[in-house]
């Protein structure tokens, strides 16, 4: 992305979605929900890309940060009744920010032990943190425990979902493209060499975790106010894997690719469900001939992951070699 025009693009995107959100009532609710999921998916994937892609760490607990943000934001907005449009936006913004901060704090807690860990160990520790967050939420009666938490307000709309996605992309792209941000890529390329060149690798790793977790928390807040019901099991290992797959499909450290992958992967399960619901195909006598796709779509999904790793480990959308593609 060309950084000079990025601010203009950002403002443009914000304006477009502000206007679009005024016409949202004309969009069918099912598709509206899918659109929110896409916005949330983009935020999650792009923020995870900072940790897994640019900095070369391996986090398997991104859904845990999302959970922290979701619950924090939901608890805050649940304190309020019906509000007018301006008060609503203010409260929502504060709640989302608070969710992000809470998640960033969790990211700091994960980041500190990672100072000594690499690769596989880091993966398993972040996975463990994600699970610990889930178990703690399950045991917190204040937020409903395993029964779940109802969120009173459905405040997420197109403006918030895509506006914040644009902000996330902008902030992370600017961060990585700045002089400071070269450090992330240095840590990714060769940690020992980076350290020898005087880069504080620990600081960069923790920064990546905190920033990534912050945006995951914001996405969690959006998720809470779009689904309006939270359960701890909705933020498990599987969710984290989905975001990791988005980053890998898009090509680690390739923001545009990751955005495309987030859109694709959010729509894929829905698409497969729609296809499997088709009643008749021309030339085929059977009723609902593609029904098997619905039943086996998760198997297809996992096979795709394996085949992709065997054939295109650099991701789907990497056309030319980027500075990050070193292997």
């Amino acid at each position, binding site marked *: 992305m060309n950084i000079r025009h990025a601010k203009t693009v950002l403002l443009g995107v914000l304006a477009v979605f502000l206007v679009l959100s005024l016409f949202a009532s004309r969009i069918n609710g099912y598709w509206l929900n899918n659109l929110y999921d896409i916005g949330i998916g983009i935020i999650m994937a792009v923020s995870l890309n900072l940790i897994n892609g640019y900095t070369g760490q*391996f986090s398997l607990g991104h859904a845990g940060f999302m959970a922290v943000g979701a619950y924090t934001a939901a608890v805050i907005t649940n304190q309020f009744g019906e509000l007018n449009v301006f008060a609503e936006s203010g409260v929502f913004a504060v709640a989302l920010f608070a969710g992000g901060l809470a998640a960033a704090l969790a990211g700091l807690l994960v980041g500190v*032990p990672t100072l*000594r*860990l690499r*690769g*596989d*160990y880091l*993966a*398993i*520790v972040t*996975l*463990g*943190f994600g*699970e*610990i967050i889930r*178990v*703690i939420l*399950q*045991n917190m009666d204040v937020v409903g425990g395993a029964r779940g938490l109802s969120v009173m307000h459905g405040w997420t709309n197109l403006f918030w979902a895509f506006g914040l996605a644009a902000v996330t992309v902008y902030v992370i792209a600017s961060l990585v493209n700045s002089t400071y941000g070269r450090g992330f890529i240095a840590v990714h390329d060769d940690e*020992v060499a980076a350290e020898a060149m005087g880069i504080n690798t620990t600081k960069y790793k923790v920064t990546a975790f905190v920033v990534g977790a912050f945006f995951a928390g914001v996405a969690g807040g959006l998720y809470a106010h779009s689904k309006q019901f939270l359960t701890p099991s909705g933020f498990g*290992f599987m969710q984290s*894997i989905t975001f*990791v797959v988005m980053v*890998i499909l898009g090509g680690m450290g390739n923001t545009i690719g990751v955005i495309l992958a987030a859109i694709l992967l959010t729509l894929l399960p829905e698409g497969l469900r729609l296809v499997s619901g088709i009643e008749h195909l021309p030339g085929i006598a059977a009723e609902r001939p593609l029904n098997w796709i619905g*039943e*086996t779509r*998760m*198997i297809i*999904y*996992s*096979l795709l*992951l*394996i085949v992709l*790793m*065997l054939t295109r*480990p650099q991701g789907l959308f990497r056309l030319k070699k980027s500075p990050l593609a070193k*292997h």
Partner: protein
Amino acid sequence: MTEFLQQIINGLAFGSILALIALGYTMVYGILRFINFAHGDVFMLGAFAGFYLAPKIATLIPLPSILGGLAVLVASMVICAALGVLIERLAYRPLRRSPKLTVLITAIGVSLFLEYTGQFVFGAAPKKFPQILPVYPIAKIGGLSLNSNQVIVLGTTLLLLFVLRFIVLKTKMGMAMRAVSFNPEAAALMGVNTDIVISFTFALGSALAAAAGILWAVNYPAIDPLMGILPGLKAFVAAVLGGIGNLPGAALGGIIIGVIETLVSGYVSSTYRDAIAFAVLILILLIRPSGLLGKKEVEKV
């Protein structure tokens, strides 16, 4: 006091199953340096192999009986050993020279594939594992109860540990395994066929996971396609706790995790039990990253 001892007995039985799974993780890590995420699902397949084999075996040898139970155990171990070799051949071998991350993600893919295929083929609802072993309370010492299943679990685990120790330390293949884990290139130059050694390692680890699956199903007879996830992760934690790549360490780690988890769920809160293993993992990595019995590795540039 009796309650405490009872918890320890339960913890030992649970921990020795974890130890069997942990051995597979630690062997594969020792040789290929990657976490075989699908290992927990091989454990699940071991239990399901037993579930489908038991009625067939019952036509030859009446079940429940010691001999019949043994037949189910061995048959399931053989099936899973073949499966482990197949997984390695199809998914991991083409990636022998790829970055570690690629292999790790492939392993996650294999794990998901086995889980979802399991849900599709076996059905997602839990199944009741048939009784393959006769149960009788062996001892009641002042309120302590010890049933035959627990004794069989501990006994089988100990036996398999000795067999494994024999294979690794006394056979030619074991020597080759140790050589490959020490330095794959040098071992290959000395005429060790690393591909066969790696296949053998997967066969051995998967057979142990299958044994763990059967023992688990005998003790907790509800099996489902996702049953391997948590025991798999806990067993991995056990392997790290003992020092990954270290066989006695994996066994020790399994026992420790099993006992701690049982004690916590007995005395503190049973709803926190699934978080215990991970808390232990984070602590051990902070305090002693090489594990209890592991050697400290120096990074060479």
